[in-house]
């Protein structure tokens, strides 16, 4: 499959009162055409900031993309002038967020909000845009589309608003849909509906999805390819089946073991000891070392690089390095 997006060495930093935080630290990965890539990790691992960096939504002076390359369909998103980027954003790359309520304008009718990108990007006139908006509302499975188009966000439920967000996102037939925790705020029965819908649109429209989530269940259901992040770094990546059946990095193993699974009750859950390190106090080391049961002396002093292992998976872990570094 062809690469749609190629991210190389992406680094995003934030300047806080206490110091500089590298929220995303030399992250590289690819998204192929028609593929769903999931970024999974816990809060603060940099998964959302990665998405924001791709969309050019990291705002100075608080933070900035400090380095790296984002190649999208042959064009470098980072070096692009704002106007060209605007033409791509919402058009070829669309994004949906965790909180649909706060992503929509509360004083603008639903229909108008769907019409906006259609008129800006596809140059439809008002009448055509309105017709297309109503089609889109029907497509995301909402009844009475005419009435919904004339209502305001506060009149709809969370699940319906997320559907509207999806309608806006797919309105211009994007090549890439970035979904940042799209179902985290929703109930499980609604989550199942939304995930089904995303899968359908992907299958019919051939778009790629970059799905950001903390829920390994959602990853298993949606992903073709999985990227595991920890403290701003990619610690492991691989095909979804390989990664779940044969995780390499101790963090991935721990995450998979600590998730309670319906129908598979254990006397005691495995839990990863300790907690995520403070991003201000990171030393050159494996950032997971103080929580890792297989920690080696080298893990405390040097950072492992992401390396391809047998089977095509990649992991950044000293356990898989050549024997000499262990001494």
């Amino acid at each position, binding site marked *: 499959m062809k690469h749609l997006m190629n991210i190389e060495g992406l680094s995003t930093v934030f300047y806080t009162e206490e110091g500089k935080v590298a929220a995303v630290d030399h992250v590289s990965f690819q998204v192929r055409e028609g593929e769903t890539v999931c970024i999974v990790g816990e809060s603060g691992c940099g998964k959302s900031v990665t998405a924001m960096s791709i969309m050019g939504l990291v705002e100075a002076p608080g933070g900035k993309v400090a380095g790296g390359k984002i190649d999208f369909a042959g064009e470098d998103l980072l070096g692009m002038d704002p106007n060209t980027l605007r033409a791509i954003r919402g058009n070829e790359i669309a994004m949906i967020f965790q909180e649909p309520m706060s992503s929509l304008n509360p004083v603008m009718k639903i229909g108008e909000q769907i019409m906006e990108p259609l008129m800006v990007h596809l140059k439809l006139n008002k009448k055509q845009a309105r017709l297309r908006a109503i089609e889109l509302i029907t497509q995301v499975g909402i009844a009475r589309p005419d009435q919904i188009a004339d209502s305001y966000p506060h009149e709809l439920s969370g699940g319906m608003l997320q559907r509207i967000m999806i309608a806006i996102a797919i309105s211009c037939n994007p090549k890439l849909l970035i979904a940042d925790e799209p179902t985290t705020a929703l109930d499980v029965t609604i989550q*199942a509906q939304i995930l089904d819908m995303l899968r359908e649109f992907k299958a019919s429209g051939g778009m790629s999805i970059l799905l950001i989530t903390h829920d390994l269940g959602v990853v298993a259901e949606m992903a073709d390819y999985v990227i595991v992040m920890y403290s701003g770094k990619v610690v492991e990546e691989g095909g*979804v089946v390989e990664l779940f059946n044969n995780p390499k990095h101790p963090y991935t193993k721990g995450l998979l073991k600590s998730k309670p699974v319906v129908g598979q009750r254990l006397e005691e859950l495995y*839990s990863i000891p300790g907690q995520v390190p403070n991003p201000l106090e990171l030393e050159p080391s494996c950032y997971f070392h103080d929580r890792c049961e297989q920690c080696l002396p080298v893990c405390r002093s040097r950072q492992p690089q992401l390396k391809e292992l047998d089977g095509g998976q990649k992991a950044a872990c000293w356990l898989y390095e050549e024997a000499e570094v262990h001494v």
Partner: protein
Amino acid sequence: MSEALLEVNHLKKYFPVTEGLLNRTVGQVKAVDDISLTLQPGETFGLVGESGSGKSTVGRTILRLTEKTAGEVKFKGQDIHSLSSVELRLLRPQMQLIFQDPYSALNPRVRVGDAIGEALLDHGLCSRHEVRELVLESLDACGLSAYHIDRFPHEFSGGQRQRIGIARALILNPDLIIADEPVSALDVSIQAQIINLFSKLQRSKGMAYLFISHDLSVVEHLCSRIGVMYLGSMVETASRDELFHSPLHPYTKALLSAVPVPIPRLKRERIVLKGDIPSPANPPSGCKFHTRCPFAVEVCKAQTPVFRDAGGGHFVACHLV
């Protein structure tokens, strides 16, 4: 069977809907509509349901943090809702509540040690000299260190704050802890730590939990009996194994099948429910679930199903069972 620790009979909690300048009551939201459950000492009862199902209101009404509309709540044989405020206060240390959001449950200007010890002093359960010792004990039981005692809430992570919330409930040696979504705001690796802490504490101290959660996998892990709520009513109550292996109510089945399982390419039958949970201010007639139920028949629209024993203590409210 020993005497039940907590007995809830036909509990109802309606909130008035008011309108206009004069705040006339124009309707009612039946947040809790005829809920019954019993909890034995040392047992864990799980209450699951989607947002708006009324599960949190059940917890709050049991503790009389809001007044009931009808029904009865008996704790160790005493009707909580008919006690005077003095009597209720004497009973409070025995029933504690743990909240979902440990960030907003702690006063940011109160040192953690004081926040944990406050209740002991307020209830006159120990003297000022003893309190520090007991706080340290409670911190230790919850996996926190002695040096945490003089810190402020903002110095802690989410998981640690939830440990503080648990320590604060634990220090009173309660017989009943109502935990309202205590792990929902936490990351997976931290969630596992807190779940294990809950089971460890129960093994050592023997208190009963009423565990309120929307996450079936967490509830399965901790609870011996589980009740499923939908729009203020209990639709199914059963032991854990019964509920997870042979669920009877279509809503329970749909909920179970909607939980994503971390096994890729897993083929399973999924019941996808249509639409949203209806507004509790205007619930559907008959069986409240009939608007979303894939198996609904005529009788479901007209008649409310009776919540009855389908055999072996497996209760269900459905016309089709």
